[in-house]
């Protein structure tokens, strides 16, 4: 086990310090989740634009096809 890992210095090249990159990682994740929400959920179960259905109707086929529940 150890003999294999020592002969492969390519492994574990970099460890990113989470504390330093936390802002970028969390920020990216939040924006990505917002996009996920607008493509998949908004104006169905809950809606941030009230009764408007433009987002829902526009991505309608993608929503079904990506596996989200739809009307």
């Amino acid at each position, binding site marked *: 086990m150890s003999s294999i890992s020592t002969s492969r210095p390519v492994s574990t090249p970099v460890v990113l310090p989470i504390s330093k990159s936390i802002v*970028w990682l969390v920020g990216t994740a939040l924006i990505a989740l917002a996009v996920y929400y607008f493509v998949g959920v908004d104006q169905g179960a809950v809606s941030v634009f009230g009764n408007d259905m433009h987002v829902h109707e526009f991505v309608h086929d993608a929503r079904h096809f990506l596996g989200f529940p739809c009307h």
Partner: protein
Amino acid sequence: MEKKLILRGILAGAVAGLLAFVFARIFAEPQIAKAIDYESGRDAAQNALDKAAGMPVEGHEHELFSRTIQANVGIGAGMILFGMAMGALFAVAYAVCLGRTGGLRPRSLALLVAGGGFLGMYLVPFLKYPANPPAIGHEETIQQRSALYLIMVVCSVAFLAGAVYLGKRLQARFGNWNATLLAGAAFVVAIGIVMLLLPQFGHLSYNKANFGNQATETPLPLKDAKGTIVYPGFPADVLFNFRFYSVAAQLVLWTALGLIFAPLAERLLQPVRPDSTTPSKEPDPVPA
């Protein structure tokens, strides 16, 4: 470093989403069209029945976007945005896993994280609540269905992350192979319990009250007052094809994401000067 990884993840995700869109445009849209035809025909039959029974007939819904726009532009925008969002999440997961998940090359890790994304964000939730074409799904239950689906997604992703952590903890005691198997088994048991506890869509209270004891919301044959079938149930072949292509499209998306990201990450992370103790057989990587 994390910024470079995130940028590459989003780019890879956009290309992956584009490929999945091309796949969807060719394979999914004909099935979606058949499902919508079924829905229209069924609505017409229902209206005729209502009219004969002297009940008020529902007016036709007005459309915000034509089918042409939905089937060619809307699905493309949706798939590419989804791909970019998944690429961004993928990059975040990759950055966290980097160097913390054992002796993996950057590109091997890319494929493993993509596989985890496919499982957690799509396939495992799909096992409980599979994708449905238009015409399947009651408007009255959309809130519950969305909540249940998202619970499945959150649990799948959380349990996968937990399984990776557990595997790392068990590795010292059981070795790589057995620790991986044990962590995988723990994931299956945990998600299996959640799947057993969550209700089927057909068993939601609204559906039970209006449609009887059915497991799903897939439309049954439409019957008139005498019980004669006047319109068939949802065509099984369309349902199967739609779901099959749905899985295939996600497989395309996550595979492309992993395969595009892998060489980008390898270039970014591999030391530019090869280690003197292990001379590389390959030519030196070009500095980016």
